[in-house]
């Protein structure tokens, strides 16, 4: 049973890890996340302004040295005792899971990674498991299909958290679509390295969204949503695409 507890929130210090995609392309997702955190009672929120990227694009492409330099910067930018909250399961998993591989031969940064791994959370996971909040007082009229982002699901075990939050949104009907945990075909550079395969996977995902009867698709990761929205826009499919923070930020 998850308890509502504003006491916890008011004693929680949060550093925002906005991520390169959200910073440059979807700042409204970051803004929504901040709005919800404040509504939940988190007062002490900072944005370490030197932050850039977690290094994942280079790591996934086979360039660990370049990734490492950027990752070291990340560790230095976020080295304090605050919680780190991010609107991306993919980026959080890079830090909390894959930094161990990236720094396996560097004891100093390995230890720093392990320390930070204990404090970094994807947004919905943070709300449920750190703040103990499952109802953020949001309102949204719509039938929502939730897409499980691969890293969020398989590296971080995020599955119940976003669903519980969405179920508690007034007016929102949560639908479980077929193959909700199948990859949407983004995979970072995969989407441009093998565009036809990526698009075929995406087509299947979009068909599942359509078949579910949902008018909105929601996820924890903008990489996936950018991919899904891009296809739906091209095909003029009128289903709305939102990051979970955007849904949770709506109160009227």
């Amino acid at each position, binding site marked *: 049973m998850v308890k509502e507890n504003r006491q916890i929130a008011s004693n929680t210090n949060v550093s925002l890890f906005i991520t390169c995609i*959200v910073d*440059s392309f979807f700042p409204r997702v970051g803004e929504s996340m901040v709005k919800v955190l404040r509504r939940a009672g988190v007062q002490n929120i900072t944005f370490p302004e030197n932050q850039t990227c977690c290094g994942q694009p280079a790591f996934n492409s086979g360039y660990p040295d*370049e990734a490492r330099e950027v990752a070291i910067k990340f560790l230095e930018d976020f080295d304090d005792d605050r919680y780190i909250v991010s609107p991306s399961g993919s980026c959080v998993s890079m830090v909390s899971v894959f930094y161990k591989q990236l720094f396996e031969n560097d004891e100093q940064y390995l230890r720093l990674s392990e320390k930070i791994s204990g404090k970094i959370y994807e947004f919905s996971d943070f709300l449920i498991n750190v703040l103990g909040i499952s109802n953020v007082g949001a309102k949204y009229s719509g039938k929502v299909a939730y897409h499980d982002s*691969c890293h969020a699901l398989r590296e971080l075990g995020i599955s119940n958290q976003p669903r519980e939050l969405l179920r508690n949104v007034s007016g929102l009907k949560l639908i479980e679509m077929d193959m909700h*945990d199948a990859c949407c075909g983004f995979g970072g550079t*995969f989407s441009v390295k093998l565009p036809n*395969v990526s698009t075929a*996977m995406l087509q299947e995902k979009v068909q599942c969204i359509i078949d579910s009867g949902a008018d909105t698709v929601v996820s924890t990761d903008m990489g996936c949503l950018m991919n899904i929205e*891009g296809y739906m826009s*091209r095909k003029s499919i009128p289903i709305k695409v939102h990051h979970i923070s955007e849904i949770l930020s709506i109160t009227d």
Partner: protein
Amino acid sequence: MLLKYSFEEESNKALKNKNLQEALINTTNRFRSARNKIVSDSDNWEELRQVARSIKEHTINNLHNYLQLLENNIISAGGHVHWARDSEEACEIIRQIAQKNSVKKIVKSKSMATEEIHLNKSLESHGYSVVETDLGEYILQLSGDRPSHIIAPAIHKTKADISKLFSEKFNVPEYDDPQELTSIAREKLRSEFLSADMGISGVNFAAADTGTIAIVENEGNARLTTTLPKIHIALMGIEKIIPKFDQMGLFLKLLIGSATGQKISTYVSLITGPRKKGETDGPKEFHLVLLDNGRSKIMSNPNTRESLYCIRCGACLNICPVYRKVGGHAYGGTYSGPIGAIINPQLEGIDKHPELPFASSLCGACKDVCPVKIDFPKVLLDLRRQVIENKSKENSRAGLIEKLSFKVWKGINKHPKLLQLLNSIGYYMQKPFIGNNNKITSLPFIFSRWTKTRDLAPIPKKSFRQIWKERNND
């Protein structure tokens, strides 16, 4: 002119093949549902996976000792053991056994290891008649084709393909009924079994402590292949060994449940050496050929060593969103799907399969279903690193452009002010590309690969960091 094989090109072809697409959906859906039922009916599947992985980890770390023990026990049981360093040596060993025994006809049961060493080609070029007896493999042999799925090798063939093939090869009408087609094959194969001098099989598992090999099947052809002819040769990748016969139950359950969703396959053959004194069935001679062919090399890399835990169940193929769209032939090697993506480059060389480690979105679904919990994403990431390192030595233009791009990427991400500047520049430079619906519909260079099928939301005027800065300055 030898055209270089390209995963991208082959996968594009596969995507346009309607018959293949339908076959892939039907087959993988069927295997996935069956496996899901077995897993949900089990109350300790996760525990079994962990135990199996631990046993494999221990075995691979002590491989030579267990292989030695296996050899001793097979010899005690009256069998022979041969050690083959590579494909050529394995084929040579098998040919010599055939020659020594004046073999003319050979029957084979399904074995991916024999595909790996191109055994049929080697035997046929030396004048031996080889007949595949697994129905799928038989069909492929008749049509001069190669397997496209580890468990169901001929899924890329339609009923119509097979009907036409049988009609051509056997001078019979083009039957529509699968039962009819199967009984034609059955009749043909029966006479082959009865006239064969030698049977060649694969091995699913070998128990070191008893010298017993296990072969799993649903058709019965492996049972006939390994018992009727007077010589039985079993070819085994060295990683297929398990320490104890008592562990067979666990591994058979995981293999069969993961592969076809059965509780047990129709036939499970447990063979310890040749026919013994007083026994009425079985071959006079039993030979186990142990195949290395690059496996020791895999062992030497701790980051990819777990590739050797694979028990060849095919579950990773059935769940892989890439395999399900492109099928097995696109992988351009013996194995396909996630396991193919990790072992084809390691067995045949990174330079031969530089695209395979990238033929994945790193979704990790394979890791979830693997009965021995192979961490595919981790292995793929290490192989990607190896491919790029290898590419540096090649100095190709595309390789240099990508390398430079990541150096630039690194520079930008180490300097947030530079990142911000780029954002602002991007905001202005994108204007000509923004279409009527306020979306970017076409971009140049590699980005056209995105915009070919997808729109892109334009970069907003203010980035998050700008908005935050402005708000906090108020």
